[in-house]
């Protein structure tokens, strides 16, 4: 098994707000291995972005409280100094966002911004940095980069900006790339270009944490998947385990409610009743209890994240693997509702 590059241990992130404390991340543990693409999926508000931003030290603020450990190259990033973080950020761990404009400065030329990023972490001349920036733009598929390098971000289309962001992320050959919904704001045909670009660049990108709500994208490029719900990891496994033998009822619901362009069209779309839980006053016990049709008395106690199905898979549901296998099929598809 490949070595762990990054280890997140029992991470908790809470924010004090007027309405009370929002426990956005509530005991998340996982490791990112050398060379893998780890996808994080889950309901909106389940803590995916806060987890990623905390790794980058971007959630630090007076109203935030942290617990746990984020191990990277023998250091704990959660308790690292700003100085240490600056060294890591951009250089060893790079991040791209849904909206590239949040990381591109609107008044500077793109090439200058990429060259600047290179020079911030490496001793190279201006001319060399500019040349490397041009090469990077070419590498991510920007046509005639020699002239495009002097464009401003607003002169690029959405897809080109996302390419430029990837170029900037690659600038210092980071060991980890964190991509938070990198294709969500893009059209399907442009999304396909970016996904295939990330696929092509895999060897250069090191390890990737990909946050997305699109299980199609996950199926396309992830090696392992982490499913989050209500600030917690509810299931984790390899791509195959997760898609063909999902253990947690929330994962069944997620897979089942997709309206797909292929295969037989179900008469009704299976759905998950109700709304995601409050993070201020979450349900006691299993977080998914309030929406789970299979809930039983034991669910009042929080199930530990444990290996129940064999393989590398771990999940947070009290049902036995046999019960799970029996309960999750609907009309030949994976689904949340019990077979009638």
């Amino acid at each position, binding site marked *: 098994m490949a070595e762990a590059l990054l280890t997140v241990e029992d991470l908790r992130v809470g924010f004090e707000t007027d309405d009370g404390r929002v426990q956005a991340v509530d005991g998340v543990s996982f490791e990112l291995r050398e060379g893998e693409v780890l996808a994080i999926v889950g*309901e*909106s508000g389940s803590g995916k972005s806060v987890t990623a931003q905390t790794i980058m030290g971007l959630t630090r603020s007076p109203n935030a409280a942290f617990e746990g450990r984020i191990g990277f190259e023998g250091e704990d990033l959660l308790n690292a100094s700003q100085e240490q973080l600056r060294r890591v950020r951009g250089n060893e761990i790079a991040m791209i966002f849904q909206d590239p404009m949040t990381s591109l400065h609107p008044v500077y030329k793109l090439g200058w911004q990429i060259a600047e990023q290179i020079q911030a972490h490496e001793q190279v001349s201006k001319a060399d940095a500019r040349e490397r920036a041009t090469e990077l733009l070419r590498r991510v598929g920007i046509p005639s980069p020699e002239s495009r390098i002097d464009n401003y971000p607003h002169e690029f*289309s959405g*897809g*080109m900006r996302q390419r430029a962001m990837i170029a900037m992320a690659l600038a210092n050959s980071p060991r980890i790339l964190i991509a938070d919904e990198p294709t969500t704001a893009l*059209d*399907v*045909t*442009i*999304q*396909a*270009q970016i*996904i*295939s670009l990330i696929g092509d660049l895999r060897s250069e990108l090191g390890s990737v944490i990909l946050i997305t*709500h*699109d*299980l*199609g*994208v*996950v*199926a*396309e490029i992830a090696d392992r998947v982490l499913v989050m719900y209500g600030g917690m990891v509810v299931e984790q496994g390899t*791509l*195959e385990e997760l*898609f063909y033998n999902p253990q947690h009822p929330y994962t069944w*619901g*997620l*897979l089942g*409610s*997709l*309206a*797909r*362009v*292929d295969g037989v*069209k179900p008469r*009704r*779309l*299976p*759905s*998950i*009743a109700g*709304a*995601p839980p409050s993070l201020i006053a979450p349900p006691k016990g299993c977080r998914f209890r309030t929406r789970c049709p299979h809930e039983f008395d034991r669910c009042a106690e929080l199930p530990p994240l444990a290996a129940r199905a064999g393989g590398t898979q771990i999940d947070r549901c009290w049902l036995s693997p046999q019960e799970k296998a029996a309960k999750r099929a609907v009309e030949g598809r994976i689904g949340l509702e019990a077979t009638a």
Partner: protein
Amino acid sequence: MSEAADTDALVEVDHLKQYFPIKSGLLIDREVARVHAVDDVTFSLRRGETFGVVGESGCGKSTLSRCLLRLLDPTAGTVRFEGRDITTLSRAQLRPLRSEMQMIFQDPYASLNPRKRVGQIVGDPIKLHGGAKGGEGSVKTRVQTLLERVGLQAEHYNRFPHEFSGGQRQRIGIARALALEPKLIVADEPVSALDVSVQAQIVNLLDDLQDDFGLTYVFVAHDLGVVRHVSDRVAVMYLGKVVEVSPAEELYTKPVHPYTAALLSAIPIPDPRENRARRRVVLQGDVPSPIDPPPACRFHTRCPFATEVCSTVEPPLVDYGGGHLVACHHPQNVSEQEIRAATVAPESPVSAGDLLPEPRGDSARAAAQSSS
């Protein structure tokens, strides 16, 4: 096509154009260019059907939706609602029709007034359109019935929009749209802002309401999976033009326009093994600007099958039978016979000629000749 009013049609859209002027100049507003947002679109909606509209950002889906409800004044063409041309009606004449056509928006939050309670949001249109015959009390009962019908509770009547989740807010928007018992609902990306699990709830709700109230839907979305699930027919738009219209299932199993085929193949399938087994076409390049769209076939700059004719002659909308219309010189997934039997559809844009696609044998020969 236009005169003989189709009695089954609730809405007939005839050669509709919506251009937006782009002005420049500090002192005098000078029109320097035009956005061809909707460019000669013809189709009709049958009562009780769901008509899906898909296409990339900026292709004109929202503009088309707004024209259907006369929220815009079209540059040219007509929209008939129950046989009546609404493009020439005055505000006063439109008013009684407004209750018959409603819209549901993408962002349930932005479209609900944050300072109004749910009861007002849903009830105000009823009062405004004089539907409050039994007075205040009857409006309240009606609103509460509606709230329950869309899966909210009667006691939500006094709450404000911010107290609801995204999915619940979309339910409020739906209750508001239903309040006046419309015949037509135009839903512009109604589930795009919602979580997958909640999307399914809303899609099922819209489905049930259609059965109960005999509604006709126009369902605009960029998610082709959702559109497949809800639609009876689907129109694919590219840069202001309808490039393909088809019964829904057929569009997904037999896409004829290369753009439709590329769009479908660009969607990753949430099944790792099937995904790996699939052949994908990744389209090169960006979507061109609708200000200066490519001539002739607007897709020719990105099309893997384009030949010279594609950049010189606008392909007409051609009827392949069974209501499957496609505007392309090199149709995919159709047989030689189907191509020979095809005719130019009355829905075809005026600017397109009547050049029918050549049966493949001939075009293959032509391609071989032109490349040699």
